[in-house]
């Protein structure tokens, strides 16, 4: 490693991406973190090569418009710091809409967060005059369907995929007046990830959806 920049510590940061940032794309969020680390004065390790990049990895991209309640990232430092100190250095450097919930040490040699991702939980708020029962019937039908062929755009080209195996569970509950809460667990692994808006669309609830939050991520090492 050049410049004595051998990573000495890997920190796992749990953070929330709130309303104010929900329209920020994944790339924009990565750039924001890079700048947060620099403002906080953390000595982030850099990759080698012609265009050295700061070493950190966000576990999973959030769809634009979706907030995240417990997102995760790993960052590699060239210094050894106490996680609590990192937390207190990060806080004043965070823009509104970004919140750090937890900082803990991770094994320097452990596999990447992305490769360990298995599933994600989402919570959608639905405003609809329909009854919970009516929506439940459609949820049941969706879960019993042998396949749910859908189309999505990938690098400009339309392709067909099956949404069904990506849906692990869907539950509907009554919320406040005129409001339903739909929670779902979707596959989110290197083999494929389900999108919450696709599930809501398949249920005919796209226009009724008021807000979607990704509430938690599930990793191989959680098991």
């Amino acid at each position, binding site marked *: 490693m050049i*410049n004595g920049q051998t990573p000495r510590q890997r920190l796992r940061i749990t953070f929330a991406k709130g309303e104010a940032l929900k*329209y920020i*794309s994944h790339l924009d969020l990565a*750039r924001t973190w890079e700048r*947060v680390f*620099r403002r906080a004065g953390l000595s982030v390790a850099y990759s080698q090569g012609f265009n050295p990049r700061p070493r950190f990895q966000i576990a999973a991209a959030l769809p634009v*418009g979706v907030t995240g309640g417990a997102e995760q990232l790993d960052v590699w430092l060239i210094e050894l710091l106490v996680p609590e100190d990192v937390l207190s250095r990060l806080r004043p*450097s965070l*823009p509104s809409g970004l919140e750090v919930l937890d900082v803990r040490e991770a094994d320097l040699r452990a596999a990447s967060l992305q490769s360990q991702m298995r599933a994600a939980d989402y919570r959608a708020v639905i405003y609809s005059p329909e009854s919970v029962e009516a929506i439940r019937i459609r949820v049941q039908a969706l879960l019993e369907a042998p396949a749910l062929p859908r189309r999505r755009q990938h690098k400009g080209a339309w392709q067909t995929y099956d949404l069904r195996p990506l849906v692990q569970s869907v539950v509907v509950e009554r919320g406040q007046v005129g409001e339903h809460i739909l929670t779902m667990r979707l596959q989110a692994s290197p083999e494929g990830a389900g999108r919450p808006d696709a599930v809501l669309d398949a249920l005919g609830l796209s226009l009724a959806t008021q807000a979607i939050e990704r509430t938690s991520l599930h990793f191989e090492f959680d098991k």
Partner: protein
Amino acid sequence: MRTKPRLHDLNVDGILDRILPTVSKPARYTGGEWNSVLKDWGACDVRWALVFPDTYEIGMSNLGLAILYDLLNRQDGVLAERVYAPWVDMEQAMRAVGLPLFSLESRRPLAEFDLVGFSLPYEQLYTNLLNMLDLACLPVLAAERDERYPLVIAGGGATYNPEPLAGFVDAFVLGEGEEVILEVTAAVREAKRQNSTREALLRRLARIQGVYVPRFYEVAYHGDGTIAKVRPKFPEAQIPVRKRIVAILPPPLTRPVVPYVDTVHNRATIEIQRGCGRGCRFCQAGMVYRPVRERPVDEILDAVDAIIANTGFEEIALLSLSSGDYSQIETLVRELVARHGERHLSISLPSLRIESVSVGLMEQLQAAGRRSSFTFAPEAATERLRGIINKPIADEDLLAVVEEVYSRGWKTIKLYFMIGHPTQTLDDVAAIAELTMRVRRVGRQVIGRKAQVNVSVSTLVPKPHTPFQWVPLADEADIRAHQEYLKENLRGPGLKLNWNSYQETLLETVLCRGDRRLGAAIHRAWQLGARFDGWSDQFKVEAWRQAFCEAGLDIGFYARRPRALDEVFPWDHIDTGVTKAYLARDYQASLRGETRLDCRERCYACGILTAFRDERAGLPANAWGCPPVEL
């Protein structure tokens, strides 16, 4: 998140949640960026909407408006909020739901502000100015806006000829804004306290040096359509209206807003020098931003420390019209690398003259991060033509620098040329292709087939306030032939050629040289759908053609006509400090192929020292680039 009640109680947040998922890059419209300032609306009595009438990505890259935003928000009782042009999809969505144009900070409609200040660095933004006023539910014509509406102000490079927008803008602020914007703010505060009429406020503003209120002047024309005289209608209206300068550069901006979305120049910027003494004859900035003023090295270094700590930016641009001409550029870059190199700060010098690039500077830049590309602007490729435009540089010097650049890890060199210079022939154009091929050859010798040369060839726009203001825009057939020649001769691996369409150049020429009568064509073109005229994919040539036709204006009269030396130009009553007599002398010197030195070495009496004698008085002798002269 937002708790403050709004005057009109528009549920902007709710509406945005419905439309933002349907538009491209929605984060351009949500604000809340690091270092953005949301002041208490009720605690401020002068409220500015600062508008950049192009996309967020371009507007956020503009230093001028960022300086004013910071300056105004640091004043007690004053607030400034940002507004950028919504892209066409967002405009459509806003119009569909009846959402008026709003500011990024408090999300209030523009109509609630006291002042709407437009920054106009280039002329292709004129239709966007009209469109944004309309989108804000404000009448586009100044005459139709009474006391109920905010005052519409404009400044920036394009407003050195304010005439085409005379019917739409209430007051122009000419020159450097740092001091005059506070004077305008104070006048508005006073007018609000006294409940003055709009007319009284405008008269008050007209007395401030640098403020031009077009309705207080009348223009008389000759039978041939040229201008006979511009007359002030009131004693308050100055003639000529002299631009403002700051005698010493004020402390630099160290808390710029950090964008979330990727912008054109997504980096920190520090202005190291204002003005340029080189005197390239086509260059408006080189004439209108005089005198040359340098910022001290220590001030820059401290400011960069502060900017990086305040923003977390990974790159700093050292801004100047010619950053290599900064007298201590090597020291500065060396010191920046020493302080920030370990933390991977990239340093970029956006405008380097070939002769200002030393091996020492290149070594420093090599140490300073990403080597994406190196840009040079020879502008002409023959010695003769370089004499005409006053940008003398030897091919051998260029090629020597090119060799150094390629050998130090840069793979791409960008070359900027212009065609349509006065007296240019096909030989001069052929020389562009030859020189480009020689650059590629050098690159291949050094790094083989990885060597890339990107050539941009624009067409000379004879700009107001330059020695070329008497020159007609080149003939369309010639320009097309020259472009065809270059397309034919600059193809192959490692070469990329960019050029401008003649129609776009023609429009830019007409807009920058227009008089008051042009306003009718701008108005009509906007009604016919023209906006984002600087974007090739949005440019609507037919709308403009029809607009000129309906307004009864001849494009050739504005763009293609040779001018007599004594013709009164629409912008002659705007005084940049550089005299028309000096520009005429330099134009004539150009026709004789005479070059001039950088005026920091020898004074050619452009007029700046006479015009700003008071500002200069009491400053240290070396505060400006001007050498000692007898006045």
